[in-house]
């Protein structure tokens, strides 16, 4: 008999999503401002429930369909906190720019559920349908900008290309199932080990490539990255942040689980290809970012660059490298949210999101400019900030596997990235602005931004406890390998 208590976070978060959508129906227009509070309190409750019931549990439901272990637990907590932060950074933006707040928050919560399921699934179909749930949520959220034709355009692009990627993935899964006879990662591994994988047949390779292609779309790795700048630019800004962090982290969670417990025996054939993709992704992302003049596009390319770094960890395929990936996801996530919070705040008060719009920001709002500078320095990987510690851990882990030149390339790319981040900082501090009115922000936005900045420093200066959690998570992941 299945122990349904093990699904308690999923059940409660689903209930929360329905609750938020339902509450929206009954709340008067002037009371809709309470929706973000309902959502955030709800998410905190779910977080509490998850920690209370599942911490340290190691269970395997429905014969490996659904896994509860430290790895999935880590990502559950990560996604819940991320969702909470996204709700917080959305609140003011939604008030001004989104027409249907109830559906916005409800679907946002559904997408958190989808990400949690992705990290916990131990089987391809469950993973696929969770990914699909995530994609549908994101399609809607991307297109939900109130006034923007840009937003709608971004939504259409995302839906069309997402459908292609999803078709890839489904096709790949059917191919794998046809050849291996199972969709469960653990069983797949057994079959592949038994088959003496030295001579892989074309069908299997194509199957895996299709699946990877579908996931590569989600993380925006070259050559599946092209949607990212357009969609990032067009989407409502909090959703851009969410796309850049959440959907990427969820896809990485799935990739890590799938690679380590399903395909690890054939990874050697893959290493070079992923190395090349990683190298291309980071180099292209950072080089093209040099030529951008819209801040959201710039961050889109910078996030492509970060995907390149993260892929290096996938190549290395050791618990240490996986630690690095998870840690960097956290560090990058916090930093990116802070960065986007600044963008949202500036956009809310000036309507600008081009780099030129940042001219003179230092005089108009010193705190905003400084927070943005902190976030950008962290993205560039300067010590003291989250970006350094997490990147360093990742790079060291990869270098440990002998991929020194790749790490060298990554460090060089970080240098390039510093250059374009400095351009933004230069713009904020030096370039004169046509409009010199002092910007005033609500206490609420300032404190959310403040919290994020504190997180950046916290992860950068005192990563010890976080690292321990992550190490447990990755150990549990590798414990599935016989």
């Amino acid at each position: 008999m299945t122990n349904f208590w093990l699904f308690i976070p999923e059940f409660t978060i689903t209930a929360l999503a329905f609750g938020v959508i339902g509450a929206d129906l009954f709340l008067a227009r002037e009371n809709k401002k309470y929706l973000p509070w309902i959502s955030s309190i709800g998410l905190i409750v779910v977080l509490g429930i998850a920690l209370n019931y599942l911490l340290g549990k190691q269970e395997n439901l429905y014969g490996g369909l659904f896994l509860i272990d430290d790895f999935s637990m880590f990502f559950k907590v990560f996604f819940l906190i991320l969702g909470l932060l996204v709700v917080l950074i959305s609140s003011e933006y939604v008030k001004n720019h989104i027409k249907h707040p109830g559906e916005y928050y409800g679907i946002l919560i559904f997408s958190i559920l989808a990400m949690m399921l992705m990290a916990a699934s131990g089987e391809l179909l469950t993973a696929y349908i969770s990914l699909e749930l995530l994609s549908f949520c994101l399609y809607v959220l991307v297109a939900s900008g109130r006034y923007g034709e840009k937003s709608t355009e971004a939504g259409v692009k995302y839906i069309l290309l997402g459908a292609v990627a999803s078709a890839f993935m489904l096709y790949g899964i059917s191919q794998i199932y046809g050849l291996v006879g199972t969709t469960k990662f653990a069983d797949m591994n057994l079959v592949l080990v038994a088959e003496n994988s030295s001579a892989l047949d074309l069908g299997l390779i194509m199957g895996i490539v299709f699946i990877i292609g579908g996931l590569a779309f989600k993380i925006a790795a070259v050559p599946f990255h092209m949607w990212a700048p357009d969609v990032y630019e067009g989407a409502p800004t909090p959703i851009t942040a969410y796309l850049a962090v959440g959907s990427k982290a969820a896809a990485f969670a799935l990739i890590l689980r799938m690679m380590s417990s399903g395909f690890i025996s054939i990874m050697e054939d893959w290493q070079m290809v992923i190395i090349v993709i990683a190298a291309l992704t980071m180099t292209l992302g950072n080089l093209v970012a040099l030529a951008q003049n819209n801040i959201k596009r710039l961050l889109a390319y910078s996030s492509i660059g970060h995907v390149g770094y993260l892929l290096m960890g996938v190549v290395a395929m050791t618990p240490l490298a996986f630690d690095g990936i998870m840690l960097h996801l956290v560090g990058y996530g916090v930093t990116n949210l802070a960065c986007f919070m600044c963008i949202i705040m500036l956009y809310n008060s000036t309507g600008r999101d081009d780099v030129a719009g940042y001219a003179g920001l230092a005089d108009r709002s010193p705190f905003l400019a400084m927070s943005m500078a902190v976030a950008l320095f962290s993205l560039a990987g300067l010590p003291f900030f989250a970006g350094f510690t997490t990147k360093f851990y990742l790079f060291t882990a990869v270098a440990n596997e002998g991929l020194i030149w790749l790490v060298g390339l990554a460090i060089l790319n970080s240098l390039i990235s510093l250059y374009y981040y400095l351009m933004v900082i230069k713009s904020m501090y030096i370039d004169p602005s046509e409009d010199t009115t002092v910007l005033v922000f609500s206490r609420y936005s300032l404190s959310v931004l403040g919290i994020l900045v504190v997180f950046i420093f916290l992860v950068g200066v005192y990563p010890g406890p976080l690292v321990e959690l992550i190490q447990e998570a990755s150990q549990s992941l590798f414990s599935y390998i016989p």
Partner: protein
Amino acid sequence: MGSTQESGTEGGVLTESLVVFLIISVVCVAGGLGVVFSRNVIHATFLLLVSLMGVAGIFLLLLAEFLALVQVLIYGGAITIVVLFVIMLTKSDEFESLVDNSQKPLAFLISIGLFVVMTVAAIAADNGNTVRASLKFSDLGHSLFTDWAIPFEVASLVLLVALIGAIVISKQGEEE
């Protein structure tokens, strides 16, 4: 039900099922090409129906009666009808240029390439022993609601989100 049948070719001899398979495949592919190349949306929709029915035929051939049934009911019935409704409610002449784009030759080459690769892969794959077996409806239902309960439930959420999303997006343009 519950019967089994051996796979299509036996020593290179054409069996009945292979002949049927070939006919159905031709219908499927022709329908699909028709959808892509047709310049009239209404025609395209009906050709899509042909293709979908062909797929139902393939399901039958694989002894997957349930899927064949669902395919006819949902795709043939519901989805095509909805598509037709939508087209009739909008101005269909807007779609005239849908198939024009400059990368056609390249796309054609790549598609052929992918097709060749996947065909080679399918032929090379060692699946001679595969036995087609049909499944009881009740078994299918049972496994959907037990072993596969999670994906099944998540699928319902996908539909729900799609529904809500469609409403949200379509109401976007309206002024308050």
